[in-house]
């Protein structure tokens, strides 16, 4: 099992995407189906951007097992008051500043759900959010 860990800084859009790009490189070296890699990386990217856009700081832990990839994204931030609403396509509370940078379409969480096999969200308003995503590497 390979374990990777990245610290994510809230508000720093300059670096957003760096961790997912790194994970992509690692997965490529393992001869994993490019289609699966793409899905994993898209899901992780959305999660990474959400920490940058909505939280203060966070970290991502990726574990690569022979049969699956697990991603755990933990942040200190405002939390999500209504998870069910947040999961809907188009729902967004992104600030004007974030929208100007091309984010805030409300597609991140739905994309994460679509591109992974399991998505679990634990969140506490005023404290932070933990997101656990799993993608199985079963060959299609």
């Amino acid at each position, binding site marked *: 099992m390979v374990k990777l860990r990245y610290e994510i800084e809230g508000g720093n859009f300059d670096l957003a995407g760096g961790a997912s*790009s790194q994970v992509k490189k*690692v997965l490529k070296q*393992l*001869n994993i189906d490019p289609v699966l890699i793409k899905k994993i990386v898209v899901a992780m990217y959305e999660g990474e951007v959400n920490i940058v856009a909505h939280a203060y700081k966070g970290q991502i832990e990726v574990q690569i097992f022979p049969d699956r990839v697990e991603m755990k994204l933990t942040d200190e931030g405002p939390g999500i008051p209504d998870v069910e609403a947040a999961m809907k396509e188009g729902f967004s509370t992104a600030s004007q500043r974030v929208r100007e940078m091309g984010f805030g379409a409300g597609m991140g969480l739905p994309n994460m759900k679509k591109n992974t096999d399991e998505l679990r969200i634990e969140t506490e308003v005023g404290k932070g959010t933990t997101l656990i995503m799993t993608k199985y*590497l079963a060959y299609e």
Partner: protein
Amino acid sequence: MSSNEKFHHALVVDDNKCIRCTHCIKTCPTEAIRMVNGKVEIREERCVDCGQCMRVCPHKAISIEQDDLVQIENYRFKVLLIPSVFIGQFPYAYTEDQIYRSLLKLGFTHVYEVEQPIEVLKTLIRREIRENKSNLPVISSFCPAVVRLIRIKYPAFTEQIMRVKAPHDLVAHYILENFKKQGVSPDDVGFFYVTPCAAKITAVKSPIGEEVSIINGVINSNHLYNKAMSVIEKVDELDVEPFKKELTKEGIQWSLTHGETWWQRAKTISVDGIHNAIRFLERMENGQVSGFDFLELRACDRSCAGGVLLSQNRFLVVERLKMRARLYPASSVKMEAEGYGRFSGLEPLAVTDEIKPRPLMLYGSDTFKALEKMERARNIMCHLPGIDCAACGAPTCRALAEDMVNGLAKMSDCIFIQQQWQNQGKVSPQKAFQKMEKKWGENRFDPDCTKKGAKDESF
């Protein structure tokens, strides 16, 4: 499916000239070079022939193979194919015609610039974009170093590479067809291509997507330039206009940055320099680049004007070609006047077979085993100092760790680890020094004044 054909390589290291300085090892964009038993080793499956190592070698120890010029005597018609950047090598004082004539003086019967008839390539590019709407951008196949880079490091993009041959192939077919029309047997015609770089040689010697190349021999640009300069004052007043009948603005600038894009209406982008190309492909793979129809990627800074076998300053080459281009008709205008019909027979000859990916699997292709190896390499990284000094013979600590789990290197290759072991009494200083000599060659550490910055710089 990846193909198993062996990559041919044009770059050769001269062990006698090499002082084992690691410049090449550190600069290689695919980490293909290592120091093994006192010798520089280029790992074939990783090398893309970009020529960066040759550029940085302070001792000119890396060179590019070429064919012997005497073999032109085997043919009745000796056709020389030069890239337009070759013209840019000469001082301005020499006119284009003088340059052509100097090449004839060297024994060639015909001299053509390769970037013609360019309308065929333009047509194929436009068609490829039209027919591949679902898989854009189409990626240019012009630079063989980039094509190889994509095949090994970005295999998923391989199918987006244009399946069209290089200009030198196309022009050779065009000339051969004309010879045939005059009743000349193809066996009597020899084609000799002047290359600006290592990658183009490799493309001739092991062409991707075709069996054998139509080119019979390859000559290095700098070599031919010196020969031409030795006769340029003594040329005969021959008419060279017939060789330039199909030269156009687009053709002359084809091998420069934007050469394949400036005339297009589609949404295109041009990137030059291999490190820039890598960064761009990385972005594209991350899904951060979208909306382009056509992508021109070239390994050299200023594209072929910066080819490693050219000696003239690349900016001056670009300038000269731009000036020249002004004097030639646009290909589109020429087509309106003369029609395209005469070229349509060339199209099938310009298309290659499928280009296959050839992914570089650092830890082998078995995911399970690769995962184990990767885990070990990452553990090893905790112990290596992360200084990336290349004194172990690998370009970075990470590369050394990868080599170690693949059985190609040892922990003791790291000089800092050695030092630590000595400090802890785990290894004797004698033993440690022996190891170093094994890696770097005997007497490598004796004083020697022939090196840059020392007394003797005359190598």
